[in-house]
């Protein structure tokens, strides 16, 4: 398979994630879309790592996975505390910091 196929897959996955972040109101689905975007970046890094025969892409991906896991934990804890405070999932209703 040529390299560009994997890069197109990563680009499409990233695009779907961007659409999810920008259009959905449900905060849990926004977090899922962020995970989709991180996965797209990982696909791109690993395909470059394979086609350039360089291990650094895979090391980067390992760290990205670690950071993504902690990001998911913090994000979902925020969702739970937000639900306790405001009883809502709706991102549009969480506008305390909005001027």
């Amino acid at each position, binding site marked *: *398979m*040529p*390299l*560009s*196929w994997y890069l*197109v*897959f990563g*680009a*499409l*996955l*990233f*695009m*779907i*994630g*961007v*659409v*999810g972040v920008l*259009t959905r*109101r*449900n905060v*849990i*689905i926004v*977090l*899922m879309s962020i*995970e*989709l975007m991180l*996965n797209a970046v*990982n696909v791109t890094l*690993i395909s470059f790592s*394979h*086609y350039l*025969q360089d*291990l650094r892409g*895979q*090391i980067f*991906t*390992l*760290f990205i*996975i*670690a950071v*993504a*896991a*902690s*990001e*998911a*934990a*913090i994000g*979902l*804890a*925020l*969702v*739970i*505390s937000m*639900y306790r405070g405001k*009883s*809502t*999932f*709706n*991102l*549009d209703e969480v506008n305390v910091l909005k001027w």
Partner: protein
Amino acid sequence: MVFFFLLFTIAGLASAVMVVTRKNVMHAALFLLLTFACVGATYVMLRAELLAAVQVLVYAGAVMVLFLFAILLVNMPEAVRLRQWTRQTAVAVVLAGLTGLWLIIATVRAFTGFAAPPEAATQPLGTPRAIGEALFSDYVLPFEIASLILLAAMVGAIVLARETAREEERPTEALSGPPQPDAQEDQQPV
């Protein structure tokens, strides 16, 4: 090989679209699981077997369990009833589509005909031994920082998710004086 590539990428992209469009959060989470599995399969095709295993363990295992717990801890029916899409949906889709189109054109123009070196097919690059040696020699500082980030995330998640529970317990403790015997059961070692 081309068949499997198309199978896993098309399944992954289709389930990613389902994640973004489903109304029910639980359905979206299950489609996200399918997307993670398909992305892990493409890692195997790129000869990154260790990362495919990490993908399944961390994403399809840990992150997915976190999502399912969060979904189960909050009230699902309300989330299905609320308006699902923001007002700027059309603009966002157009902008994201243009960005994706630009990315695809740029990568296809830059990397068409870029083939893997012949040794890529014979010797896998990301063996556990190679990644372990790199992690503990050249990348030992990022490795330690990653462990600190995980510790901070763990403490932060506990603090964020427990805050209101602690405030609810405080007045009952003040009223009832000494803690009740059944209240201490939680603290016994398991």
